[in-house]
């Protein structure tokens, strides 16, 4: 039997899935991403360094801040710019805003309908109006943060190498929506606890995240669940990208051949201890413990991360005083730089080299969705075991559900340089 | 200090008494009101959520006034949905009037092009009602085709009292009268040099008629034209309707031709 899903729904971007089943077993399974590649690395070549945050943001309209943050970090790395703590805090706040907005979007708009067996949030809102409204409020807190700091939710305009073009006088107006989102998140605990999660265990995979002073988001080195700590500049020594014939997106695996996952579950499993107190409390009340190996429960981890971001954001907002200067001075120079941060969907790695004037000589970007394609296929194999005998419709349905757990972003995955046919 | 001023943006309401379908996209509305107004003036008609549009007061009785509206955009299309008994919100009247007294003891020539007849209907009816000492009243009306002729039910009465001539640009077999542009009709018509002329129609038509009238020896001082421009406020403050130093909304819409000539005839003023 062949099961085809020509167009995955409720994911960002467009992809397809082909499954071949023989004698009750999956014989072949292909996650096909068919969106044409957009050649960002090539486009960046020759452009001045300062265009990086604006251009790379366009790789993904859902997590542009992630691109901006990894991007400026790489440039600052190359030019030896050290950002002040004060400015770093505001960068974090902006990034939290994106996590909140993007996670809430995924949790409520894309993922939650699966647990209620409805087609969309529009239908969900007819049966669970208050739940949907709550989701909107949480998302709004993130959107407002982004708008305040960057002018708009998607492709904000304020981020630059060395800091920000301009910072707001005050952030007071964010306090109320953030605090409200926090209350609302807690009020939803019972709802989330009551969701039904199919069983699945990702036994043999490696969880990969960043590690830094706080729960990882803005920077740091790479940490694997089997105990490796890798400097950002060495990323490519341990992880390699490869392509498959049936998909227009690159993939990534660890050089030792191990399948790995990046994203909320990996962060949670690797860095649980660094979550904010309220986020820990939230996890506890959801009976969520690290390591959590059931990808279906990623929705819970996203909620925990939302709470973490809200708590950290509220603190930053309350302490905020506009810095004397919104940016620090620097000079462009020849060299190579690396930037890595935790996009909502996982590790986003950038590296660039520049000539004397700061023109980009080469660019290399590895987004989270590229990295998660193998683990998605693996999870599909596991997730489909139970339903293989239940007919095409059910298989199709379950496949999409499994894929959604990873919140893949296909626009990110197809940004890349060139298709190698393997 | 309390500011107590009449708010020019305040809307009033009038009930639709009667709706006449003139043609496929032109309707005439009779609105209940006792407001004072003069021929040549216009109202701003309001459509909820759509905006306002300046519309000529086509006629007036003791307790109603008449608007003829062509549905071209948001406001006018909305107005077309109104039926008997509905309420129309409007403000006005605005603008100046046709100076009929200038025609005393003279010939009065009215030239209407297309929907422009909405702006001349009332003054034409006044001119022929016998109260004004006018020597001769002549009305030339040019229309695209038979279907778009307006006010057909009035022609009979008009023809009895004055010379009312129609020309059609693209007639069909139903039409027995004049054929061609309105300028052709002017050419054919006997008009005295000192006739007073009222024109309303699209800009190019007005210009062409003036040329034709010049040939007949009519002076620009004897020609009045009613103009159409983009309008938002109607009280001379939004600036959109400016033509040279004039605001069409308050200094017009009726202008003596010699006064606006140099702006009107110039390109892009």
């Amino acid at each position, binding site marked *: 039997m062949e099961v085809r899903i020509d167009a995955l729904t409720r994911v960002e971007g467009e992809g397809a899935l082909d499954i071949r089943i023989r004698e009750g077993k999956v014989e072949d399974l292909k996650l096909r991403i068919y969106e044409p590649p957009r050649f960002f690395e090539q486009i960046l070549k020759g452009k001045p360094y300062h265009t990086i945050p604006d251009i790379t943001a366009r790789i993904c309209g859902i997590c542009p801040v992630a691109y901006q943050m990894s991007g400026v970090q790489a440039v600052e790395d190359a030019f030896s710019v050290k950002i002040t703590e004060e400015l770093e805090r505001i960068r974090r706040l902006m990034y939290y805003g994106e996590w909140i907005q993007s996670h809430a979007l995924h949790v409520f708009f894309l993922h939650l309908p699966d647990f209620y067996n409805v087609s969309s949030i529009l239908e969900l809102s007819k049966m669970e109006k208050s739940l949907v409204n709550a989701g909107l409020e949480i998302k709004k807190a993130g959107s407002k943060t982004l708008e305040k700091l960057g002018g708009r939710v998607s492709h904000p305009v304020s981020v630059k190498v060395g800091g920000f073009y*301009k910072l707001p006088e005050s952030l007071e107006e964010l306090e109320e929506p953030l605090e409200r989102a926090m209350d609302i998140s807690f009020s939803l605990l019972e709802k989330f606890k009551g969701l039904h999660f199919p069983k699945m265990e990702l036994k043999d995979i490696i969880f990969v995240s960043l590690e830094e002073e706080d729960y990882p988001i803005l920077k740091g080195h790479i940490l694997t669940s089997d105990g490796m700590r890798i400097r950002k500049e060495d990323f490519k020594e341990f992880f390699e990208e490869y392509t498959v014939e049936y998909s227009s997106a690159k993939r990534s695996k660890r050089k030792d051949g191990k399948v790995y996952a990046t994203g909320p579950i990996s962060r949670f499993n690797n860095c649980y201890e660094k979550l904010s107190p309220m986020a820990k409390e939230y996890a506890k009340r959801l009976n969520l413990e690290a390591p959590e190996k059931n990808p279906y429960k990623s929705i819970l981890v996203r909620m925990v991360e939302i709470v973490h971001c809200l708590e950290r954001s509220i603190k930053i907002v309350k302490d905020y005083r506009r810095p004397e200067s919104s940016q620090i001075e620097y000079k462009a120079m020849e060299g190579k730089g690396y930037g890595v941060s935790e996009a909502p969907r996982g590790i986003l790695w950038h590296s660039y080299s520049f000539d004397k004037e700061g023109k980009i000589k080469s660019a290399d970007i590895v987004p989270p969705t590229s990295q998660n394609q193998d683990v998605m296929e693996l999870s599909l194999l596991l997730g489909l075991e139970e339903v293989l005998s239940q007919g095409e419709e059910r298989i199709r349905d379950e496949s999409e559900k499994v894929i959604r757990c990873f919140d893949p972003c296909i626009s990110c995955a197809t940004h890349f340089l060139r298709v190698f046919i393997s | *200090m309390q*500011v107590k*001023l*009449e*708010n*020019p*943006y*305040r*809307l009033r309401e009038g009930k639709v008494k009667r709706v006449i379908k003139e043609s496929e996209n032109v309707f005439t509305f009779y609105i209940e009101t006792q407001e004072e107004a003069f021929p040549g003036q216009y109202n701003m008609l309001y459509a*909820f*959520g*759509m*905006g*306002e549009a300046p519309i000529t007061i086509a006629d007036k009785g003791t307790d109603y006034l008449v608007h003829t509206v062509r549905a*071209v955009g948001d406001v006018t299309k909305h107005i077309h949905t109104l039926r008997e008994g509905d*309420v129309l*919100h409007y403000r006005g009247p605005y603008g100046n009037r046709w100076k009929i007294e200038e025609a005393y003891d003279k010939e009065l020539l009215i030239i209407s092009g297309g929907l422009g007849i909405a702006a001349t209907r009332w003054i034409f009816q006044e001119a022929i009602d016998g109260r004004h000492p006018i020597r001769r009243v002549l009305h030339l009306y040019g229309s695209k085709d038979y279907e778009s002729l307006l006010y057909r039910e009035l022609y009979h009465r008009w023809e009895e009292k004055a010379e009312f001539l129609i020309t059609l640009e693209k007639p069909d077999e139903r039409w027995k009268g004049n054929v061609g542009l309105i300028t052709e009709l002017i050419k054919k018509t006997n008009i005295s040099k000192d006739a007073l002329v009222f024109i309303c129609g699209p800009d190019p038509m007005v210009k062409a008629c003036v040329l034709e009238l010049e040939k007949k020896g009519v002076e620009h001082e004897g020609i009045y034209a009613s103009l*159409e*421009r*983009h309008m*938002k*406020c109607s*009280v*001379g*403050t*939004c*600036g*959109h309707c*400016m033509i*040279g*130093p004039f*605001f069409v909304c*308050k200094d017009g819409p009726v202008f003596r031709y010699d006064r606006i000539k*140099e702006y009107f005839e*110039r*390109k*892009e*003023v």
Partner: protein
Amino acid sequence: MPFFLKKDRIEVLFGRLKERYKIIAPKLVDGVISYAYVSTMDEVPFGYRDHQAPGYYRIKKEDTKELFTYTHPWNSPKSFLHPPELTLLKAKRKDNRLEFLYPMPDERYALFDVRPCDLYAIRTLDRVFLTKAPQPDPYYAFLRENLFIVAVNCNYATDTCFCSYMGTGPEARERFDLCLTELRDGFLLEVGSSKGDKLLEGLKLEPASEEHLREKEGRIRSTLELMKVGVERDGLSEKLYRVMEDTYWEEVGRRCLACTNCTQVCPTCFCFDIVEKNSFELEESQRVRVWDSCFNPSFATVHRFNIRESIRSRYRQWLMHKFAYWMDQYDTYGCVGCGRCITWCPVGIDIRREVNILASKA
């Protein structure tokens, strides 16, 4: 009778204003002197100097004890009397009927530090919206009547200032409530209205001496001398009417971006659009007045056809309106010589130069 005010006493004046009004005063915003709400006098950029030229604006802190060392802010009183966005009416659907509300603005502003050019511009706007309008505009009237004006005479003029040529400055002559002239060791304080009198009520004030008056005159004179480039005002509108078909308009039209900046910063340009703001399900609709510009391609469209398609003709509309049509409409020029349109034109078109060239062709 003019008074003399010691330097530090200006705080008292400011304090009194603050008790009664929302104070709008010059303030540094993004490195530019701007009219904005201020709550203390410290926010006023005393001691700063603005350097303006066509398409250029920078400020510098001066080493001086003088306070009013700058010229007018980049924006003008227009922003508060004829705000860029103002709701004219709110309509609401209720049981198949419409209900209308006409919200009158309720701010009581004190404009602290209005320069003579802008004071004259207020007078011009008064004509547009009140005295020469067929129906006075109540929204403007409300804001205007509640307005308290503290004028300040100019001790400095920047390169784009030409008020003296337009006959509007550098001395304020009328329509202020109070007027200050900064002198060597204090201020000359003139009262222009009973409102001004009332604000000073109970303050012990020292009458100004002859010498103070002489110093003021001297200062005004030296400011006047700073203005080297202007326009010849006499007979200007007649001359311009004569050159409406000149080919020179084409030349300016080639340089102008039609970006609308000149019309927006001009303290007298009043043109506006009215737009609908609707609720999603159309239960409610507002009519909102927003600034427009004769450079906007949609400004003069009739039946999808833009009467002023070329930039040349839009530039002509703007300049002719300011210096010719305005005279016929409002019995005054539409230009007060503040120079804002010169400074804030991104490509630095200098209206003085264009006017002079055109007039010389008549």
